[in-house]
C-alpha cells in the first residue's frame, strides 16, 4: 500500500503568549514568559503553587451563541485556533462539508470548570431541575472536537484522543496516519486545555508543581536548570491543518512543513514516573517510521516540563540516541505546561523555527543540572540551518509520543 505524504498548511494558536501564530512565535523568539502569579489560588486550601500561564484577551462572544452555548473555554480556544488554521491554509470553504476534512482535537478532560459549577449547584439540594442543555456538551470527553466540527460544518471523521500531556501529539500523529492511509484528505488536529486549580493541585500533591517562584513567576518553570522545582500549568490550544501533500499541491497551498514520522508507545514501568528506555524507544520508533537515523535530526524539541525526575530521564534518553551532537531545548519556560495543548503549541513553535531557520532556546535555563548535562542545551537562540526536527511529549499514564517534522521549500 502506497502511503500519502503529509504536510502542514495551516497553524492556529491560542496561547499564554498571544492569540495567534505570529504572537506565539514573536513571544518565543523574544524569550518572553507567559507565566504570572494568580493570587486567587491563595484561596485554595493546601495548594502551594500560585502560578499559571493563562490565556488573555479572548472574547468568547465573537462566536455565535448557538455554537458557544455548548462550549467551555477549551472549545472556544479550539474553535478560534481551527478558524485561524483554515484561514492561514486558504482551505476552501466549500470543502468543509465534503467529508474529505476531519477533526482530531483532544483535551485532558471535559470541562472541569463546568463540572464544578454543576456540582456546586447540584449539592445545594441534589436537584437536577436547574441543569441546562449545554452542560453535557461542555463536559463530554470529545467536547472540543465535536464543537469544532459542528460550528464549522466539518463532516469527515471526528475523534478526540485523550492522553494528558501527549494528547495533541497523539492527535497530530493519528491525523498524519489517517491522511497517509488516504482515509481523509485533510484534518484539523491538535489539543486544547483550559486552566483550573484542580490541574495545579494534581501536580502539587505529587510535589511536581513549581512553588519556589510564586513572587517571581517569569523565572519558572526552569527546564533542565539546577534550580527547577516543577511544572507551571498553562492553557491554550494549538491546531494544525494537515493535508495530503498531493491535494495541497494541487490547490497551490503554501506548505509550511512536512510531517514525516510519528510514534506513540506505552511505558508500563510506572503510571507517573518516566523510564529512560521507554522514552528512547519511542524516539527510535519515530525515526524508523520516518526512515531516518539519529544523524538526520538537526534539533530536538524536548517535552522537559521542569520537574526533577522528568527532565533527567528525558535528557538521558536524548543523550542515548543523539549524544551531544544535536541541540535541544524546551518551550515550557515560555509557555508553562499547556498539557493537552502542549504538543501542538510547541510543534507550532517548531514550524516557526523551520521558517525562520532559527532555534529557540530554553527560557530560564541558567545553570544546567549536571544530571541533565549529557546533551547540548540551547541557552541562546541560534540561527543555523534546520531541516529536520524531532519533538517529544511524555504524559502521565505512561503515554509517550514523538513526531518528526521536516522543512518544505515551496516552488
Amino acid at each position, binding site marked *: 500500500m502506497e502511503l500519502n505524504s503529509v504536510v502542514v498548511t495551516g497553524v492556529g494558536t491560542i496561547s499564554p503568549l498571544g492569540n495567534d501564530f505570529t504572537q506565539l512565535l514573536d513571544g518565543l523568539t523574544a524569550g518572553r514568559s507567559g507565566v504570572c502569579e494568580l493570587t486567587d489560588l491563595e484561596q485554595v486550601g493546601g495548594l502551594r503553587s500560585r502560578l499559571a500561564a493563562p490565556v488573555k484577551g479572548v472574547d468568547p462572544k465573537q462566536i455565535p451563541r*448557538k455554537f458557544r452555548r455548548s462550549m467551555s473555554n477549551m472549545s472556544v480556544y479550539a474553535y478560534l485556533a481551527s478558524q485561524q488554521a483554515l484561514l492561514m491554509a486558504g482551505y476552501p470553504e466549500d470543502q468543509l462539508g465534503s467529508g474529505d476534512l476531519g477533526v482530531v482535537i483532544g483535551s485532558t478532560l471535559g470541562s472541569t470548570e463546568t463540572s464544578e459549577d454543576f456540582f456546586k449547584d447540584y449539592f445545594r439540594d441534589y436537584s437536577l431541575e436547574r441543569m*441546562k*442543555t*449545554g452542560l453535557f456538551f461542555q463536559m463530554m470527553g470529545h467536547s472540543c472536537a465535536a464543537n469544532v466540527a459542528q460550528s464549522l460544518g466539518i463532516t469527515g471523521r471526528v475523534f478526540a484522543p485523550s492522553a494528558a500531556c501527549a494528547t495533541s501529539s497523539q492527535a497530530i500523529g493519528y491525523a498524519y496516519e489517517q491522511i497517509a492511509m488516504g482515509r481523509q484528505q485533510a484534518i484539523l488536529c491538535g489539543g486544547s486545555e483550559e486552566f483550573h486549580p484542580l490541574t495545579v493541585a494534581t501536580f502539587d500533591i505529587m510535589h511536581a508543581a513549581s512553588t519556589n517562584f510564586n513572587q517571581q513567576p517569569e523565572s519558572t518553570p526552569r527546564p533542565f536548570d539546577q534550580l527547577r522545582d516543577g511544572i507551571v500549568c498553562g492553557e491554550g490550544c494549538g491546531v494544525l491543518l494537515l493535508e495530503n501533500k498531493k491535494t495541497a499541491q494541487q490547490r497551490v497551498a503554501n506548505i509550511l512543513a512536512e510531517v514525516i514520522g510519528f510514534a506513540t508507545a506505552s511505558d508500563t514501568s510506572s503510571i507517573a514516573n518516566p523510564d529512560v528506555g521507554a522514552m528512547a524507544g519511542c524516539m527510535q520508533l519515530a525515526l524508523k517510521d520516518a526512515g531516518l537515523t539519529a544523524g538526520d535530526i538537526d534539533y530536538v524539541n524536548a517535552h522537559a516540563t521542569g520537574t526533577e525526575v522528568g527532565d533527567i530521564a528525558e535528557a538521558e534518553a536524548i543523550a542515548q540516541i543523539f549524544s551531544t551532537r544535536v541541540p535541544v531545548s524546551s518551550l515550557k519556560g515560555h509557555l508553562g505546561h499547556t498539557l493537552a495543548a502542549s504538543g501542538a503549541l510547541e510543534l507550532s513553535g517548531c514550524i516557526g523555527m523551520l521558517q525562520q531557520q532559527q532555534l529557540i532556546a530554553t527560557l530560564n535555563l541558567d545553570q544546567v543540572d549536571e544530571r541533565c548535562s549529557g546533551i547540548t542545551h540551547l541557552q541562546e537562540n541560534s540561527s543555523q540551518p534546520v531541516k529536520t526536527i524531532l519533538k517529544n511529549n511524555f504524559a502521565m499514564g505512561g503515554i509517550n509520543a514523538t513526531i518528526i517534522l521536516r522543512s518544505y521549500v515551496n516552488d
Partner: protein
Amino acid sequence: MTEAEIIELIDSSLAEEFELDREDMVPSANLYTDLELDSLDTVDMVIVLEGAFEFKIREEEAVRAIRTLEDIHRFVITKIEQNN
C-alpha cells in the same frame, strides 16, 4: 406583581439567557422563526422561567403549545394567577 412587571421579567430573563435584541421581542415574535430559538433553547427557557418565577412548569402540557412571546406572557400570567 403586575402584568407589566411579569412581562418585563419574562422578556429580560429571556433576553439575557438567549442574548436577544429587545427590539425584536415584540409579543407576536415567533420563538423559532423570528427569535431563532431551537429545541434545546426551549428546554432551557423552561428552566429560566422556573428560576425567575419560582414555579414548576416542565411537566405542563400547555408549555408544548407555546409558539410566540405572547404565548409565554399569557402562560406565565395564568400560571401565577392559578398559584395565587
